[in-house]
């Protein structure tokens, strides 16, 4: 399936298919990123001396160019599959997610933690049921940034034959079809804005007190 002609008309289907593939890649990458970030943040919170090393490590990973990361992950995950792209994106999100989660956890008021301990909450249950929910606004803020940049960054996968909407850039560039490039650019930006708004909405649902507090301070 590829772009027909040099105009946009008649290519809705193409853009839509690649957008769906893009969404799929982004969702899996972000879920994997969160699944990696939470245990790491837990570790950094419980053992503060590991935090600087962890931050430095996520920074170095973030400094690896995406193309290089795809190649480096290739032998482990298969050069021709989309797994290197997914894992690379998940690793990039750590630089934002780990930091935001740990900062959020550190901002949990001590009396809340003490109360949880006094009520007999063990370390893990306390983390899941008390600390993480209270830290949620920070985590959500990090997730929003991670989501927007992941959706934008996945397009690099197009240069190695993966990556949803990125394929439109690769093909549009190879065949010099300006309309295809525009379509891809707009699709990525719209997708990112919609995803951002969705997370914002879910965040308000999950942490309604945060909005109440913000409105209170603004009034």
């Amino acid at each position: 399936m590829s772009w027909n002609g040099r105009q946009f008309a008649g290519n809705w289907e193409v853009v839509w298919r690649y957008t769906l593939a893009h969404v799929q890649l982004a969702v899996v990458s972000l879920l994997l990123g969160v699944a990696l970030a939470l245990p790491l943040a837990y570790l950094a919170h419980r053992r503060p001396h590991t935090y600087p090393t962890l931050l430095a490590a996520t920074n170095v990973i973030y400094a690896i160019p995406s193309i290089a990361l795809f190649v480096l992950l290739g032998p482990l995950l298969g050069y021709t599959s989309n797994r290197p792209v997914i894992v690379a994106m998940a690793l990039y999100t750590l630089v934002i997610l780990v930091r935001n989660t740990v900062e959020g956890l550190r901002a949990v008021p001590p009396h809340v933690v003490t109360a949880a301990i006094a009520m007999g909450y063990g370390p893990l249950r306390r983390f899941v049921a008390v600390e993480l929910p209270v830290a949620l606004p920070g985590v959500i803020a990090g997730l929003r940034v991670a989501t927007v940049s992941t959706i934008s960054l996945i397009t690099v996968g197009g240069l190695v034959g993966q990556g949803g909407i990125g394929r439109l850039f690769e093909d549009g560039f190879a065949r010099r079809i300006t309309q295809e490039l525009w379509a891809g650019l707009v699709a990525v930006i719209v997708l990112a804005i919609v995803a951002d708004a969705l997370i914002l909405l879910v965040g308000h649902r999950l942490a309604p007190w945060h909005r109440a507090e913000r409105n209170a301070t603004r009034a």
Partner: protein
Amino acid sequence: MSDFVDGIRWVTDGGNWWGPNGIAARLVEHLWYSLLATALAALVGIPVGLWVGHTGHGRWITANVTNVLRAVPTVGVVTLLFVWRPLTLWPVLVALTVLALPAVVLNTVAGVDSIEPTTRVAAQACGYRASQQVLGVELPCALPLVLAGVRSAANQVIATATVAGFFGLGGLGRFLFTGYGTQRYDIVWGATVLVIALVLLVEAVFAVLQRTLVSPGVRPATAT
């Protein structure tokens, strides 16, 4: 793992460094593009951030515009501008500047916001004009966060400037793409090590800047 060892060998082999396609030439190109884009972003982003922080106007629009800028895919911008203006530096420069702007603007605003309100009121009370307040008080006090923003922007730019290699514009990305295309994974590893080394070097430069530019009176506020 042997690819990694071969990569190190490739970097340390002096024969690969010189000549028009050598590591040295590509490294200089890479640094030059990154420096231009980061400087451009700082030149635009810091004044905008200072203005927003000082006046308090345009906060909502800044938050949304920077968010949209973050969503702009670098590859998309480069391909589109490249078709329009092939083989010039503009496509890469514009795309990298767009990439760098959000971090610079948002950190500058956050920097001004982090100043104690009494400090800013004191400047007003001393009869400072608006420009004196911004340049004499707010910028120096916000400097740690401003520098942090430029640093983070520079890191992203250096890693992403490799995209230039795909468009025949050189830089270290050149090695990544030829290595990828010809399955010379030792070159990919070697170029990656060089990019990471560049990022660490820039981190070190900013650590020095942080120490020399930030006034001693402001330093305790340096959290990040």
